[in-house]
């Protein structure tokens, strides 16, 4: 019985984290049609920044976390202005080839960041000083408070994002752009500004997700690839461009992994999720809630 609660609780925490990470990824794809393969690198950058702030500037956990988020934010905008936008506006590249170019370029960019991080701070795993310490007992399961904190923050952020998108004019514009960019332009809204806004939001999400991950599990520069892949697969599983789909998929994957880790072996943790992904892509290529 405790095992059941064990799985339920751990699964929830990790899934929430996945959800937050994937939401941003889904958002920029939905709105600007970009699959950002430097996703994982941006998250790791945020973690390492938060860690370094604590380790070297000796700031408190709160300041550390804040710095991590800021770095995530900056990194995201740099990615957009340095990599994505030039390619989108390039005259030299044929339209039908831009997708592959953006994929390749962001992939490259991600690896550059990975190398840089490894160079500056070695590729040993880094963990961010947790904001909340200690453990509490839920249904007889000794649970780190940090785990609960992680889940709560994830959901707060997702909720705020939801409100932002559904309850504000600017947010509505973003949502509209994801459904029909041309329509947005015809209503006198500058798409370019919408894109910048989205990448800014994405940066904050990545920053927060990264810092939480750093507090919860910790990451190393090796995590860059796996983090991108997991976000990518969750988003595809949920349906490219569908944020709600991504949320659901995040929990499917999160629990699948936790179940595997507990019931079979931690070594096989990621495999069932990958198999599921492949299966879904055969049966229903547009994902669980895919629009396109």
């Amino acid at each position, binding site marked *: 019985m405790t095992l059941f609660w064990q799985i339920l609780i751990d699964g929830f925490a990790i899934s929430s984290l996945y959800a937050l990470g994937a939401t941003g990824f889904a958002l920029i794809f939905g709105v600007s049609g970009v699959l950002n393969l430097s996703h994982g690198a941006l998250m790791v950058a945020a973690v390492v920044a938060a860690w370094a702030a604590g380790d070297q500037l000796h700031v408190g956990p709160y300041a550390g976390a804040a710095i991590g988020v800021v770095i995530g934010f900056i990194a995201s905008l740099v990615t957009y202005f340095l990599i994505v936008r030039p390619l989108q506006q390039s005259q030299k590249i044929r339209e039908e080839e831009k997708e592959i170019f953006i994929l390749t370029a962001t992939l490259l960019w991600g690896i550059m960041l990975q190398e840089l991080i490894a160079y500056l701070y070695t590729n040993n795993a880094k963990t961010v000083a947790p904001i909340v310490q200690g453990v509490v007992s839920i249904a007889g399961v000794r649970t780190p408070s940090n785990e609960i904190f992680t889940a709560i923050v994830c959901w707060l952020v997702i909720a705020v994002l939801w409100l932002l998108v559904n309850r504000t004019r600017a947010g509505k514009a973003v949502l509209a752009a994801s459904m029909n960019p041309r329509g947005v332009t015809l209503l006198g809204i500058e798409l370019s500004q919408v894109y910048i806004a989205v990448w800014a939001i994405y940066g904050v999400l990545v920053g927060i997700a990264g810092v939480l991950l750093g507090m919860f599990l910790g990451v190393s520069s090796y995590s860059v690839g796996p983090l991108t*892949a997991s976000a990518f697969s969750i988003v595809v599983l949920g349906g490219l461009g569908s944020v709600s789909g991504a949320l659901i998929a995040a929990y499917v994957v999160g629990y699948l992994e936790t179940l595997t880790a507990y019931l079979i072996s931690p070594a096989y943790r990621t495999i069932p999720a*990958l198999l599921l992904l492949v299966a879904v*892509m055969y049966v229903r290529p547009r994902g669980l809630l895919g629009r396109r």
Partner: protein
Amino acid sequence: MQSASTTRILLIALAAVIAVSFLPLGVSGYILGLLTVAYYFGVFAMAWDLLFGFAGEVNFGPTFLVGTGAYTAGILDNLYQPPIWLCVAAGALAAVLGGVVLALPALRVRGPYFGLTTLVAVLMLQNFVVVDAHLTGGEIGLTIPDVITISDAVNYEIALWFMAVSGAILFALSRSPVGLILQASGQDAVQAGALGFNVTKHKLAAFIISAFFSGLAGALMAFYLSSASVGTFIDITVGVQIIIAAVIGGRRTILGAVLGAVFLIAMSELLRPLGDLSNFVVFAMALVVVLLFPGGFFGLLTRSKESG
């Protein structure tokens, strides 16, 4: 005139190959070692270019094919020590099977979705290698008892001529009728079908050919290094290097891929003084090429001919 220029290019390439085949006389063993690796990378990249540049399939998992070849050969040698050529053949064969497996989704799902399936394929292989450490040597690597030879010169010549032959075959193929049909299918499958071409058949063939050369090269390289590791054959970073080599060399040119590969290896060597930063700089350079010269080296050199 097409065929004329094809043979011409092949002749020039052949001349270049013969020229560099004399390097062992003047160049140190270490440089030869570097070039040996560069040549195998060249084959990986050429095989990738056949898939992407011609069949139009965005394959993020070149290392899935390469790794399958390398590890199959390596494990086989580790377990039973059969003759090396047998291990290599087995590697190539396994890669071909891998190619077919990879092709199945490609014929169903498109664009980023297929890109992801290939990515997943790599992760699966990586998982397998790490999890079955007793068989594969885990995440650090598999030690292969036998080597083809320890002579740098011989290894170099093997790699060089293997690359030359594969290159010639792939290049000729890309310029052959089949290559044309592949390009047509990659560019507009509907139209190709309406012209009476069985797109599925041709794409499958492209996957098999690409896989064959990737696997063969992977197996040979594994025996050259007498070790196989995730970090050398499977890791996504390696896959990216292969793609970069092909892209900066010039997509749809096959031979450009070799230039790209040599460039990458040469750079990381010339930048050795930078220490750990060298990789970073190399990737930065590649990024600049991607951003500013989408045509790649080959594209730059043949710009005059390519007005479209």
